[in-house]
Structures are given as structure tokens and as C-alpha cells.
């Protein structure tokens, strides 16, 4: 989030506070943003965002399966459902763009599914990377927060580059909801 806003010397403390507490540090957390080189069009960003929402939806369903309390289960199910609405909003933003090729929802699905299949990590690989203990709810929620923060960051950057006002408003709306997700996850964390 910071490195996209003029912070040129941002460093991730590998292992976070765990490393400072003398526990085993996790592996490298540096993931390349291979799909972006800074020259992408807003349409390209929207395709990535659509895939991201798909991933978030499935991630939350997976997390709901692993939930151990009704509150966490309900939260993850609700978050999963909201991500589907985000996909609708992103598709809507895409077809409203002046220079976007006319595509049906099915064609857009196929387009984004294809790009999502090229590289990237499976959910299990992703979880391993963060060394999260899924039996510990605070760790599951921390992981979800890190993902939501990345999504929020992506949408804020996309929104800033949108020339079409309608599309920008939709993306900002989705960004606002991702921010609310983060806040709700934070509040949930405080109750555990």
C-alpha cells in the first residue's frame, strides 16, 4: 500500500513480530507483482480485479469451512457473498468503459479465468507462504486482513487511473467496501 504512494524505502519485517519474539521466522514474503509493469490499461486492471474477487470469494468459502466459531463462520460467509457482488460491479465498470471491447459476461469470465490460471499461487501455497496456523482464528483473520489490504490498495490505484467517471465511481465503491471489510475484520480481531 505504501510503496504505491511515493514511499521508496519500504521494508517488510520478515516474520513480523514473531521473529522478534524469537519464534521461527516465516519464509520470504516478497511476491512480485508480475502482472503489472505500470503501463497497463484500466481494462487490464479490471480483469485482474475480477480474478482477484473470484479468488477472494473462494478463499472466504475455504475459510468458512475452517471456522470454529459461529461469529467467524457468519463473517466469512458474508464476505464471500459480497465478493460476488464486487465481481458484478467490476464487470459493470468494464463494459461502461468507452474503449472496452464489447463482451458478454461469459466471455469476460473466460478472459479473466485464463489470466488467473497463468502462474500465481494456489490457496494452499498462499497460506503456506504466510505460515498461518488456521486453527488459530487470529491468524486466519490476520491473513484475511492482509489480502483485503492488497485488494483495497489495488482498487485505489485503479480508481485513480480511471478516466471514465462512471467506471471510477464503481471502482471507488468497491474499494470502499474492501475498506469496510478490513474494519470489520479488525473489530472481530479485537473480540478474540
Amino acid at each position: 500500500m505504501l510503496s504505491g504512494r511515493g514511499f521508496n524505502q519500504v521494508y517488510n519485517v520478515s516474520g513480523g513480530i514473531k521473529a522478534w519474539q524469537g519464534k521461527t521466522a516465516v519464509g520470504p514474503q516478497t511476491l512480485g507483482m508480475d502482472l503489472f509493469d505500470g503501463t497497463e490499461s484500466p481494462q487490464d486492471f479490471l480483469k485482474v480485479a475480477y480474478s482477484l474477487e473470484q479468488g477472494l470469494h473462494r478463499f472466504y468459502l475455504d475459510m468458512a469451512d475452517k471456522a470454529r466459531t459461529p461469529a467467524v463462520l457468519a463473517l466469512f460467509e458474508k464476505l464471500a457473498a459480497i465478493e460476488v457482488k464486487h465481481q458484478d460491479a467490476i464487470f459493470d465498470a468494464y463494459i461502461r468503459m468507452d474503449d472496452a471491447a464489447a463482451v458478454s459476461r461469459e466471455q469476460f469470465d473466460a478472459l479473466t479465468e485464463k489470466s488467473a490460471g497463468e502462474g500465481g499461487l494456489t490457496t494452499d501455497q498462499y497460506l503456506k507462504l504466510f505460515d498461518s496456523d488456521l486453527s488459530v482464528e487470529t491468524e486466519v483473520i490476520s491473513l484475511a486482513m492482509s489480502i483485503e489490504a492488497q485488494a483495497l490498495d489495488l482498487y485505489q490505484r485503479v480508481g485513480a487511473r480511471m478516466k471514465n467517471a462512471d467506471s471510477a465511481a464503481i471502482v471507488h465503491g468497491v474499494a470502499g467496501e474492501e475498506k469496510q471489510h478490513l474494519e470489520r475484520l479488525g473489530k472481530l480481531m479485537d473480540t478474540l
Partner: protein
Amino acid sequence: MKWMQFFTPVESKDYKETQEMISDHSPEDITILDVRQPSEYKQSHIPGALLIPLPQLSDRVSELDPDKPTLVY
């Protein structure tokens, strides 16, 4: 479906490197940023760390100096 690699690239520093960076800078020349929840911060944090919980970060970026090296956890 596989996860897209959508993360912003950020260099990682391990415990030793983090310690070195902190000791090589005077406190006013480096930002140690804790983005966890206040309850976690209260439990333990790196000495001198500034707390801005992740949900608030996008609204509070202006509180930070982009020219200073920033360690985030």
C-alpha cells in the same frame, strides 16, 4: 484457479537486518510501522513502533514521511 500475484513488491528484512537498520538510524530518521490491531500492539511491539492499524492506513498515510526508510510489520 490459482491466486494471482497481485502483491506490490516490497523488500523483506529479516530479524538481524531489521535490528541493524534500527541501530544504524537515529529514531527520528526511520519509521517503524505496526499495522496490527491495537490489542496486539499493546501485547508486544518493536520498541519505537508507530501504530496505524491496517484498516486506517489508507486514510492516515499522510502522517508518515515517504522519504524515511519504513519498516512495516
